[in-house]
């Protein structure tokens, strides 16, 4: 396999397979990751091929999953732990923020924490409560963690490779509603750096910055805007910690207008950090304040309301209009 068209879920599966194959220290662990292959089949077939000792069905306890992953990392393993859904990461929150994130610093660098935490996140799949959340900001505030989210199959494949190779803990947010979106994956391409943003579409009138599931929405918005004669640039941020402010700044200085889009609630969300920092960096360049489009300050609503809650084409274009109105 060199170039293949794969759904994102399958691209991650192939990436995990490659990691298991290449490095005997790589482990997969989580609830139902074994025979079932995970509730989204992202780990499908891996236990069969690599055995129960490398692809580990864990007890139903997220703190236990991350806590033992830390111990395994201390022993020299490189665990890739799955949290079944976004809303179930919180029992592990303590282990992640007080232990995993800080271990390297506490040991003055003498130990490393190559742990990847995979979290299928975000809404749009008509799920019940706790299955559609976007908690990335709750991790990005915490030093010691790296946070990434791919939006394409190719990135899903390569960013997972890079996350596993990283000696830092990486939270890998998988845009679950895009799992079945297909894209080309070249397993021999040499990837760029993990924490760089990507210009997903060039434009000149305004910059849309997004990551994970919202990149597609922004690309659609840019296409729609084009018909109205507006040229929107779309950035796929790819990494929330660190944020690639160089790329964002360059684009914002070029277009002079920035709209940030994410599913997570706006209040204290990624858009806040981006808006604050970009405004500081490009104060004299911006023609309009950075506008944020995201979830509301309310619990993720029942599925029948999620289309109203989630930023869609129209809400993005509304924000574009508002920005251009300045």
């Amino acid at each position: 396999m060199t170039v293949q068209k794969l759904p994102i879920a399958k691209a991650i599966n192939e990436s995990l397979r490659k990691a298991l194959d290449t490095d005997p220290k790589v482990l997969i662990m989580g609830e139902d990751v074994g025979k079932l292959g995970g509730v989204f089949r992202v780990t499908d077939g891996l236990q069969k091929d690599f055995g129960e000792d490398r692809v580990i069905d864990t007890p139903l306890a997220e703190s236990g999953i991350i806590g033992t992953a830390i111990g395994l990392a201390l022993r020299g393993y490189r665990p890739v732990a799955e949290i079944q859904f976004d809303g179930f990461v919180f029992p592990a929150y303590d282990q992640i923020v007080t232990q995993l994130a800080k271990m390297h610093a506490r040991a003055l660098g003498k130990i490393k924490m190559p742990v990847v935490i995979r979290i299928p996140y975000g809404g749009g799949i008509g799920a019940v409560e706790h299955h559609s959340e976007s908690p990335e900001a709750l991790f990005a505030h915490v030093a010691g963690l790296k946070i990434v989210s791919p939006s394409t199959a190719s990135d899903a494949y390569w960013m997972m490779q890079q996350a596993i190779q990283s000696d830092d803990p990486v939270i890998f947010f998988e845009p679950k509603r895009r799992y079945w979106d297909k894209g080309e994956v070249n397993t021999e391409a040499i990837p760029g750096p993990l924490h760089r943003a990507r210009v997903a579409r060039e434009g000149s009138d305004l910059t849309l910055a997004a990551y994970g599931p919202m990149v597609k929405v922004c690309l659609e918005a840019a296409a729609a805007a084009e018909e109205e004669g507006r040229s929107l640039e779309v950035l796929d941020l790819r990494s929330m910690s660190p944020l690639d402010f160089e790329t964002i700044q360059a684009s914002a200085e070029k277009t002079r207008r920035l709209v940030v889009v994410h599913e997570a609630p706006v209040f204290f969300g990624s858009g806040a950090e981006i808006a604050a920092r970009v405004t500081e960096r490009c104060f004299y360049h911006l023609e309009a304040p950075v506008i944020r489009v995201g979830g509301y300050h309310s619990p993720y609503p029942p599925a029948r309301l999620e289309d109203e809650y989630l930023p869609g084409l129209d809400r993005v274009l509304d924000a574009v209009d508002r920005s251009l109105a300045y």
Partner: protein
Amino acid sequence: MTVESTAARKPRRSSGTKRASAKRTPQPQSSDPQLVQLLSPEGERVEHPEYRIDPTPDELRGLYRDMVLTRRFDAEATALQRQGELGLWASLLGQEAAQIGSGRALRDDDYVFPTYREHGVAWCRGVDPTNLLGMFRGVNHGGWDPNSNNFHLYTIVIGSQTLHATGYAMGVAKDGADSAVIAYFGDGASSQGDVAESFTFSAVYNAPVVFFCQNNQWAISEPTEKQTRVPLYQRAQGYGFPGIRVDGNDVLACLAVTRSALERARRGEGPTLVEAFTYRMGAHTTSDDPTKYRADEEREAWEAKDPILRLRRCLEREGHADEAFFAALDEESEALGKRVREVVRAMPDPDPMAIFDHVYADGHTLVDEERAQFAAYQASFVDTDTTGTASAAEGSK
């Protein structure tokens, strides 16, 4: 200690890397002395030295009716999911005895903290079954008033509710009331730290709570031995309160054992763990595909222990129910199915503005601001466009 000594015979290094993959422990038989059983799979009464129960024929028929209607409701919900009326359904198929037996042991003033699968318990509490469907349809997150039937909202985050139950029970004790509280959870949930903490808190405060664990052998695709290497009911002992395993497919045993545990709580003797040994006959939820991970034979073996069939045999054997009874119940079942179908199909989508309701009891300026912006945004479509988002906005009128 049998499990341990088995382990002792497997030296770690020899089995090397394969050692983590324990074999399935043998299934306890119904005749297992650990398992309280009052009704055999054949519908015969079984004596038990500690637990006895003497239901009237009416009560027996009542329990039967509860189980049949619960199963009928459950089947209807599964069908509604297939028809696209529900987004998801978590079937209780096979667990009717555990739920009806324990549910019927409760007094009105007792309080229930369910998981997402306690449809039978909800039935016993008098919760309208159609109320349970809102969250599975995606129109709310439960939304019923827990206090109208002393039946808390379904809890999806595994294990959390055991602490709520414990806190509630601490409150009951503070009030000097003699109500009891029951917390439902699964075999998988037993691994969650919250469940352990609820054992600690309830023991230390001697809270009047019954922990009712339906060990249905599976947590999605993981068999119980991925959660424990000894029977789950034994967990309680180490926290200083009794644990007992009951045949979860035997409605009489579930009733008797739960009743006794509730009485113990009322008497101020603190918590009890009841492990109802049962089986999840269906998929984990309608999204699940059990053929990926479990053998048909296992399910078949459990079919012979069916909780409803068992009580029917008993009713027939003891002459407490005739054809007319069963026929009437069939009709009642169909009527229930029909009503559920109709109610669900008529269930409206919520008003989009509901996104901003009840986020806070006392209000929050940001929610007010976002509500106003959203309303203005929605309104902006109605005038200019009658397709797409606008129709959603109009649907909300």
